């Protein structure tokens, strides 16, 4: 058993990165390895958009990540600095910035870049997906 982590830096539906990352995540779990976390950075933070509404005949990536968290207990960590400037705020940040509504909800969590470094150093492999 190996300990894996994923760094995703591609926005959903804009490039193959997010689709491939999710498929890889499922494969890691299916093979009995441990996926310690998925970190969303750069345009990858858009994968945490609660309001994403893709056509029904396409894979729903946001729901896919949430299912991964529910099925395998994988933490979904989103870089807070990259998220905020792109309009991705959870309830707490929305209130703090005086915004109506929020665009990020659990199981996604806004967190700092320190978590990415920790994750990468803790795992046997950090696999990056980007555009």
């Amino acid at each position, binding site marked *: 058993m190996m300990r894996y982590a994923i*760094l995703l830096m591609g926005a959903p539906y804009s490039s193959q990165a997010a689709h491939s990352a999710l498929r890889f995540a499922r494969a890691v779990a299916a093979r009995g390895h441990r996926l310690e976390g998925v970190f969303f*950075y*750069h345009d990858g933070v858009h994968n945490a958009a609660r309001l994403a509404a893709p056509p029904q005949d396409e894979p729903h990536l946001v729901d896919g990540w949430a299912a991964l968290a529910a099925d395998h207990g994988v933490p979904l960590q989103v870089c807070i*600095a*990259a998220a905020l400037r792109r309009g991705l705020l959870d309830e707490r940040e929305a209130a703090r910035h005086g915004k109506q509504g929020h665009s990020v909800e659990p199981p996604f969590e806004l967190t*700092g*870049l*320190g978590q*990415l*470094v*920790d994750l*990468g*150093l803790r795992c046997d492999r*950090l696999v*990056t997906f*980007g555009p």
Partner: protein
Amino acid sequence: MANAKGQGFEGDLLVVLRHGPHGTSWLREGLDAALVAAAFGRRVTLLFMGEGVTALVPGQKSGPLGQKGTSPTLEMLEMYDIDTLLVEAEALAWLGLRAEELMLSATAVEATELSMLASTHSLVLTF
């Protein structure tokens, strides 16, 4: 310090920067990752590759887009104890630059030495 083969470059984290200072946020977000890692006490090496070498051309201020320039961030590297800066020798030549012209002191690294860097760092992040 490094010997002729570049074997002396080691650390916890190698941050590879492959994008120039303007046009995208890759460079800025890559530098942010490096600074945070250093702030948490990790030993960080920066490698500027390809177009990323242009980040070290002096005078990268904010432009008409109002984005922050990267020069002020680069000037802070020393404060964060990030003092191992490497540049891809081939990219320097391709861009017609010399290491002495760059805004910070950086070591030119030949292509044959680049692959070793991945094995002398625990984690590699590429931006």
